[in-house]
Structures are given as structure tokens and as C-alpha cells.
């Protein structure tokens, strides 16, 4: 049930942002995707969630269906002025079961409430989402993630702009989910945080720089290599000759 990338190339307008990457995310692993800006981290996540089709190569999900994948994009992509309550948003996590039309059951409401308790937002259930701070909003989105009950969690910089306390609490939520057998993949910028909490890392600078135990991947040599690749990116590349 691991997720395998086979010679994966993904990008936009023929420009690959992720170039010929192969490897495997083990079931119930906890992996950070790191690398320079423009290195294809978010692009790889979008390929995993199914927003982008591979240009070549493929992803073997090992039996995980789209309904079992939960995706948390980067900050600020949601219209938070929308007049919805915190509970409304968390209940959306049940979409896989309720779909567009079925009513929400009492049990589903209760599970949404207990998710809010786990992220420390139970007292805010009836508040409008426009009244929340950035950190509180992220806690609400994590509660929705809990409710989604997914087997594969894809998070794009989940701790960017979060303070220490929020990061600490939400990291625990993620670790609990991993302990239940779920696979967690998160794009991360904060390398000390990665070293502290993520057993596995994948370093991406369009090409794969390293993938394995965090201690081995985040070595000086790899970091220098990624920085070197990033400083030599060209806009008008020739066609790639590599056969996929």
C-alpha cells in the first residue's frame, strides 16, 4: 500500500517543475518535502492529489483512492470573508460520505466536534470564520483534515506563519494521525523543524537531490547541491531527450 513514483515528470506548459523522480513513500511514513523555491515541491503535491497530470512517468497509489486523500493547500487560497461558521467548514470534511446532497448525521456532527476539541477550537464552533486569526484558521482546517479520515495526507507548508504553540499543537495532531497508520507528506521550509519531527525527507530541486532518512538527506552536501541547481535554472530549455 506504499505510494510509488515511477520516473515522474510534472510541470506547466512543457516546462517540467519535477523532473524524472522515482521513489517510494512507505505506508504510514512521515515525510517532509524540502528544497529551494521553485524546486517543484508544491507541484509534486499537486500531482499526488491529482490536480496535475504527469507529463511522463506515473504514480502508483497502491490502492488508495481519491476519496482517501486529503489535501491542505498553502495559506490564503480560501475566501474567508464567506459567511460560514467554523462548524460548517469542519463538517465539510465528511464530504466523502455525505457527498453534495445527503444530510449530516448526529454522529458526523459529534465527530466534527471532537475534531475541533483535538485542535483546541471547540469553543469557536459557532464563530464566523472571518473572525479567526491565521493560526486559529489553520487549527480549523486541521480539524477538517481529521474529519476527512484520509489514508494519505498532503500538506503544503502547514506551519508557515504559525507561532511556536500552534506549530507544536498541530504537529501533535499530525503525529497522532500517522500513529493511526496514515501516510503524511508535507512540504516544509523550516529545516530545524524537519530535523526534529520528520523521520523521512525528500529533497527536490526540480530533480531529486536526496530521499531517505532525514539525517542523511539534509546533509551539507545535498543542501549545497540543491542551491547550486537552483542558481542555474534557465527559462528556455531545450527538449528533454531522456526516454521515459
Amino acid at each position, binding site marked *: 500500500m506504499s505510494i510509488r513514483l515511477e520516473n515522474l515528470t510534472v510541470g506547466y506548459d512543457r516546462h517540467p517543475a519535477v523532473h524524472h523522480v522515482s521513489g517510494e513513500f512507505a505506508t504510514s511514513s512521515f515525510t517532509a518535502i524540502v528544497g529551494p523555491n521553485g524546486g517543484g515541491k508544491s507541484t509534486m503535491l499537486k500531482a499526488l492529489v491529482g*490536480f496535475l497530470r504527469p507529463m511522463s512517468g506515473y504514480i502508483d497509489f497502491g490502492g488508495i483512492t481519491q*476519496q482517501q486523500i486529503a489535501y491542505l493547500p498553502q495559506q490564503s487560497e480560501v475566501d474567508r470573508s464567506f*459567511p460560514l461558521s467554523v462548524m460548517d*467548514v469542519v463538517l465539510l470534511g465528511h464530504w466523502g460520505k455525505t457527498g*453534495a446532497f445527503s444530510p449530516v448525521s448526529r454522529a458526523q456532527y459529534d465527530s466534527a466536534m471532537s475534531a475541533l476539541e483535538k485542535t483546541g477550537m471547540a469553543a469557536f464552533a459557532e464563530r464566523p470564520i472571518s473572525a479567526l486569526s491565521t493560526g486559529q484558521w489553520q487549527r480549523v482546517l486541521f480539524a477538517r483534515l481529521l474529519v476527512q479520515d484520509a489514508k494519505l495526507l498532503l500538506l503544503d507548508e502547514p506551519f508557515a506563519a504559525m507561532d511556536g504553540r500552534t506549530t507544536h499543537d498541530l504537529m501533535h495532531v499530525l503525529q497522532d494521525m500517522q500513529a493511526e497508520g496514515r501516510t503524511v507528506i508535507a512540504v516544509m521550509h523550516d529545516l530545524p523543524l524537519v530535523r526534529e519531527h520528520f523521520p523521512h525527507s525528500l529533497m527536490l530541486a526540480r530533480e531529486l537531490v536526496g530521499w531517505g532518512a532525514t539525517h542523511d538527506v539534509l546533509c551539507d552536501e545535498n543542501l549545497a547541491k540543491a542551491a547550486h541547481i537552483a542558481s542555474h535554472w534557465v527559462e528556455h530549455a531545450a527538449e528533454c531527450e531522456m526516454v521515459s
Partner: protein
Amino acid sequence: MIESFFMDPALKRALVSALLVSVSGAPLGVLLVLRRMSLMGDVIAHAILPGTAAGFILAGLSMPIMGLGGLIAGLLVATVAGIATRFTAIREDASLATFYLLAVAVGILMLSLHGSAEDLEDILFGDAEAVDNELLVIMAAVSSFTIFMLAVIFRPLVVESFDPQFMKSVGGRGGVYHILFMLLVVLNMVEGYRTLGTLMASGLMLIPAVAAQFWTRRLAVLIGVAAVTGVFASIAGIFLAHNVQIPSGPAIVLILGLIYIVSALFGKHGSVRSRYFPGRHLKA
């Protein structure tokens, strides 16, 4: 004066037509405003004009045929505007403003070449008392259909409006609901063209929704406040139009304008009062 409401059948029909437009228009308007598509609504409203004008030229003052023309033109412009904003580099609002000016110009040109000044005025500004029983039945059907459809697609529509990425990530077909929604908007604009006139067909949809935003931040309440506002303005506007002998469209829109001004000055959220005279702050 009040008793003429019960005695005069044309006035009764005018009133019912305005009530129908305001009740089904309210939820559509709220969603349009929340999706930042007010201008799009306006464009569609104006796009109806050349369609109704074509219907008028072909079949005279036949309301169903003029309505059908308006429907075709509305759908056409909604589609073309959608394509133009997606595939050209110009910003959406600029393309939309261009489309709506063109639509009005073409419509007025057609009408002034083929109709009298009176026809032109009726079509542009509305003549609610000209609504006949046949049209009233069609309007009632459109309003019922709109409210039924909205009840069915409400959840996916709201999710698609507020968090399209989530919708996509759980495999929801956001685009389908968006198209259904736009279809309902066009239908309701056409429904209102006789009562409000093509120039102001979006009035009972948009202004109540905008005014309601000053009073509440809850979606369900927002729709309720918008509907009540629309109903009130319809009654007052039809009454005003009848007694002062002015077209019904501007009469209703003027009443809506008054409600908007009062809301913007004294409302609970984001109004002049709440911004500049908020009262003493609460405990931290």
C-alpha cells in the same frame, strides 16, 4: 389608495410579478455578491436587451417570444464573457464592462430603428402593470424552479464558491454547479425584464443582497434579509409607480437605493456607523 391594490387586476398582477422576482432573486443575488460576481450579473442583465429587441422585431409585443430572445442572448453573453475572461489576458472586469456596453448599444439601436419611443421605454424601464396572466404563470414557474434547484445544489454551490480547491480535492464537480447557477441567474434576469425593465433587471437580485451584507454575517440570515428587503421594495415600488405614473423598474430600484443608503449608514457590519462610531470597545 390601498384598496386599489385589491380592486385593480393589473396592479395586482404587477405586485405578484415583483414579489416573484424578489423571492427567487434574493438567494441568487447573495451568492453572486459573495462570489464577487455582481458585475457579471449586471452584464447578463444588460445582455438580455438585444435578445428581447430581436424578439420584439420578429413577433411584436409578444412577451414569451421576447423572453425567449432574452434568454438566448443572456446565455450567449454569459458563455462568451466566460470564455473571453478565461482565454484573453485582459482582466475580467474590463471584458465584462465592454460586453455590457456593446449589448446595450446593439439593443437600443435595434429598438430605435423598429419601435416607437414608448416601446423603447417599456422594454428598457419596465412596465409591471403590463404583465398578463400568461406571463405571470411562466414567472411563477421560473421562481419555483429556481428555489427548488437552489435547495438541491446549495451545498456544492457554496463549497465551490468559498473553497474551490477543497471541492476539487474531494473530487466534486464544481464546474457543473457553476454552470447550473449561471443558468438560474440568466433565467431570473429574463423573468424580471417586464417588471423591472432590461436596464434594471438585476436590481431586485443585487441590491437587496448588497444591503443585507450590512446587517448580518450568516449565510441563511443573509438570504432571508435580502428576500424581505426585496419584497418590501417591490410593494413600495409598485405602489409608487402606480400613483406617480413612473415606470416600475426605476421606482423599485429607487426604493432599493434608499434601503441601501440607510443600511450603509446605520447597519451592524461595515457601515459608516460601525466604522466611525463603534461605541466603546469591549473587554479584551
